[in-house]
């Protein structure tokens, strides 16, 4: 069971409260997690990554286990602690402004 924490705006948009739990086959990657999110919550299509290029939106970041994973390749395996559900994958809106 994979745990994902979405930023508040996207939780509101998808009418989610709390963490999202996803059942995924190994290997668990950024791409497979976002694929699963968009499949379960179609309204999230285009909000985390571009519809066409599939690139992560520039003001969103991926964190887990105290690490910034934003610049890892989309098909790189996520940490074991994320794949096992021990730690959540955090999708975070970058903080800008004061």
């Amino acid at each position: 069971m994979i745990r994902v924490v979405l930023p508040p705006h996207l939780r509101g948009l998808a009418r989610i409260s709390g963490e999202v739990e996803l059942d995924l086959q190994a290997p668990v990657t950024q791409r497979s997690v976002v694929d699963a999110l968009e499949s379960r919550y179609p309204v999230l299509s285009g909000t985390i990554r571009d519809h066409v290029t599939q690139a992560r939106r520039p003001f969103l970041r991926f964190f887990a286990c105290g690490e910034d994973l934003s610049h890892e390749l989309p098909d790189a395996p996520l940490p074991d602690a994320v794949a096992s559900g021990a730690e959540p994958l955090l999708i975070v809106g970058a903080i800008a402004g004061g």
Partner: protein
Amino acid sequence: MSEVRVLVGTRKGAFILTSDGKREHWDVSGPHFAGWEIYHLKGSPVDPNRLYASQSSGWFGQIIQRSSDGGKTWETPGGEALPTPGAPPTGQSNKFVYDTSDATGKPLTTHQWYDGTQHPWEFKRVWHLEPSLTDPDEVYAGVEDAALFRTKDGAHTWQEVAGLRGHGTGPLWQPGAGGLCLHTIILDAKNPKRMFIAISSAGAFRTDDGGTTWRPINRGLHSPYIPDPNAEIGHCVHHIAMHPARPGVLFMQKHWDVMRSDNAGDSWQEVSGNLPSDFGFAIDVHAHEPETIYVVPIKSDGEHFVPEGKLRVYRSRNGGNEWEALTKGLPQANCYVNVLRDAMAVDSLDKCGVYFGTSGGQVYASADAGDTWSPIVRDLPTVLSVEVQTLP
């Protein structure tokens, strides 16, 4: 008794203000989509409870919302249900992809950037939604970077009306201070094949064949701050208004200058007359008097607030040139707000109601065609758009 519904888009959500035909007491609903920028929301003329809203964010992109009950509840078309095996992809209602096909879009890939170099077209947001005059499931969307999109399935999917970008002048279009945005869409009730649009900073365009072909309609515009002040393309048109009963007559608030055209945009004449400043964004036409028009002068392009600290709507009863200041009920000292291009609208009651929203979060209403004003709400986030529905 009639009812009036005012749809307000702000920097941090949408608000819906309703009143009976007296327009004295208002109920305020919202914020809807709290925390998101709502550039525009508008109702279908043929099904007033069908509303569309453009919800966007620099972080999360574009969302299209739809209501079928006048804004009580909302849905993201195609995004609300779990997909079924074999079904077409869902979650397409926020997908705006430029048409680059040879058959329809032509592979047009760049426009002019601020520094004069060519720059790829990049979708950023929907500025304006214009529902069809005949079909509640058909809507046009004006987007940044400038292009026109259309849905025919209630916003489940969007396709570019590619003839506009493909007609040939696109590489000369340059963004204004707010971006390269298509912000004005006017449908002609008497000629379903005719449509007008405006882009900052490219100018105004018209189609007479339902969007297949387009041509610039900027003759008579004069912009001394561009290399060729009388160029066919490059004018920063801020907004255009048209009375539905007189579709050949257009009124324009340009970056500087208030203009009118009596031949559907083939040529324009300046009608700024005695305005204290002819810079501004909003312009609209009285619901029952096609020669009565309204603007809100703004001091300058460098100082986006009303002149002299006075919030004044100016009204011309003869189609321009002769303007009177409307001040009763509006602040006349220490006021430094702006009124954006889509933030003025009229109802169709008798007397005509006029409404506008400010950068300071006030929405003002006049139930007597501008003679007197009062705020419906005072402390909303920055108002981006105001639309009005007159309901039976």
